[in-house]
């Protein structure tokens, strides 16, 4: 359809992290702190764009031209550690799929069930009973994170719970793509097996611009694979927001 201009300069790749970091475009939207977790001063809620997700009026002016409030895209918070092959049924069990993510109330509710499908061998709950947000803003996983069904509810549930980023050794394809398309979370890839290096509750910092993860609890630092062209898409709040920003599709109210 005519709405899509294929002649845009920035090509983006929804299918895999590429090795083409573009720190210049990693701009402002992430660092505003909200009161999601007053008891954990380290775990700021990192995602302002989440609020604009349901705004009825489009905000196409969130463009690169407005000066960045904080150009260093840094996530800081507690981590929750899981293993290999965490499938979408463990992230959000099928019984909760009646919740429609595009409905704001149900979006919040999805967050309250994030990772509730993990077996009881996981001692700590990811989201406390009765809460809608998690105190863990970073999830550390092993191989093939997000395998299984194509349910977009999975990255949405994590994002709605307040997760800023997942750091895993590798991702299942559809989960990675859904994470980027929705802009809900950064699906970051680690160079090594961080799920063996980190423990649930460790305090981490992720510096996206330099693709680095610091574990303050253990005092160790790790390299991450660059998020590449997917970064600006997530930063913008998903493919639609990005495409509008980049002029690929007209702004919603135009």
């Amino acid at each position, binding site marked *: 359809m005519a709405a899509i201009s294929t*002649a845009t300069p920035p090509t983006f790749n929804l299918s895999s992290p590429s090795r083409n970091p573009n720190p210049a475009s990693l701009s402002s939207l992430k660092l505003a702190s909200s009161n999601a977790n007053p008891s954990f001063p380290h775990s700021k809620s990192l995602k302002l764009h989440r609020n604009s997700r349901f705004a009825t009026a489009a905000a196409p002016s969130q463009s690169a031209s407005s000066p960045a409030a904080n150009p260093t895209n840094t996530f800081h918070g507690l981590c929750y550690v899981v293993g290999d092959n965490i499938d979408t049924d463990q992230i959000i069990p099928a019984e909760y799929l*009646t919740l429609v993510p595009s409905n704001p109330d149900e979006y919040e509710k999805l967050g309250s069930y994030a990772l509730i499908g993990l*077996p009881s061998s996981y001692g700590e709950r990811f989201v406390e009973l009765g809460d809608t947000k998690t105190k863990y803003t970073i999830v550390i996983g092993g191989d093939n994170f997000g395998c299984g069904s194509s349910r977009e509810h999975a990255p949405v549930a994590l994002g709605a719970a307040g997760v800023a980023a997942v750091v895993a050794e590798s991702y299942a394809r559809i989960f990675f793509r859904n994470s980027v398309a929705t802009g809900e979370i950064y699906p970051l890839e680690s160079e090594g097996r961080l799920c063996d290096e980190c423990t649930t509750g460790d305090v981490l910092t992720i510096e996206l611009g330099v693709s680095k993860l610091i574990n303050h609890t253990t005092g160790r630092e790790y390299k991450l694979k660059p998020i590449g062209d997917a970064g600006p898409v997530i930063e913008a709040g998903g493919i*639609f927001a990005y495409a509008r920003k980049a002029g690929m599709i007209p702004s919603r109210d135009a």
Partner: protein
Amino acid sequence: MASSAVAPTSSFLVDKKILGFSASCAQPSSFPCSPQLSTKRASKKVVSVMTPQQSERKSSATGAVKTGMTMTEKILARASEKSQLVPGENAWVNVDILMTHDVCGPGSIGIFKKEFGQNAKVWDREKLVIIPDHYIFTTDERANRNVDILRDFCNEQNIKYFYDIKDLGNFKANPDYKGVCHVALAQEGHCRPGEVLLGTDSHTCTAGAFGQFATGIGNTDAGFVLGTGKLLLKVPPTLRFVMDGEMPDYLLAKDLILQIIGEISVAGATYKAMEFVGSTVESLTMEERMTLCNMVVEAGGKNGVVPADSTTYKYLEDKTSLPFEPVFSDGGARFLKEYRFDISKLEPLVAKPHSPDNRALARECKDVKIDRVYIGSCTGGKTEDFMAAAKVFLASGKKVKVPTFLVPATQKVWMDVYSLPVPGSGGKTCSQIFEEAGCDTPASPSCGACLGGPRDTYARMNEAQVCVSTTNRNFPGRMGHKEGQIYLASPYTAAASALTGFVTDPREFI
């Protein structure tokens, strides 16, 4: 990998000059003449710069292209109106069919309306297929509401193919209702060779059995397709699986795909296409080919594909009147890797808890006591799956020792279960044989307990039991209970296990 296969550029350019395009070939790095310069930078240029230039596209369709393509590459090339694509390239692909269902449809519609406007129209009312199938026979109000949302949308948009259900008390009172989307898509003629079919369900890859590109997408991507009919897709490299040898009569396609997933792991085909060829594959029926392609996502695959042949065309004869054009891998196509299997030597398999690649021989698990058997889903709930189970029950003449749940995938399958005679039974139907064996009465067609679903879903695993199932996944919690244990198996093995109460090799009965 693909990028290593840079074609002999000079001869290509010579061809182009002969065809009279020398002017645009002056710079080898500028597009239309050098699409096979498969460096990342070149391919990105193709995507961002060249798509709108319709006129030059024709040039290389005249036979100048010398680089072989796999059928997946060819389908995507045609759908993106390009003469050539290489793995890793991103292409805007025209979608032939978009399928969605009651779990992801409402969210996709929500995104479509939010992004394209409350009054927006879908790109093509005849190319969208909406199939309620997941949470149908439940009192869950939100689940029922989701089907209502689909209905309202289909009415508003005048959608041609909406397989609605209103009377939940008796599915047969709903002539439009089909059931499991992937089986219904095939039965209703929406799967056609050479086309691109996307769906908001990971098992959309099932349709690759028809020699088409089919893959699962999320709500946001589906919302985009609803508005535009297009999606940016990355061309996957292809893994080729050559299966030869006569298939023993105790094996089914489920054993073949469990063998492959066990071989390459649940992430072995991530981002990749899986092409199935060889004499064994050629001998498979359409339903068996669907089983094969259905589970490519369990290996992480983006799509699975079986070349179309006379079996395909025969199946399609009375199902679609639309023209289609099959494509096939070129002789010189490049495959990332080729695997070969001698199927005549294969034994019945299971995937043990809690991963589809946790492969074992069925006979190795003969001491595993089970609590129930489940036969159903897009993977193992087709007519031939029930025929296979009935064959085992018939051969044994015995009764099942554990509760055995049967959920036909679609209304058509249900009808077959109640009407088709089972060969060698003296005219008995599957349903009669199941009744004599002591199975539960075949339930209303839907996705059922394959994915757990709402608490009141028929045959949902609400306790930590051990189940042998013809479904597709056995991750923790998949069928309901987090501590439940699921052994994935063929309908033969599932039926044999029902008869003994242990995981059982079907050769004990057939």
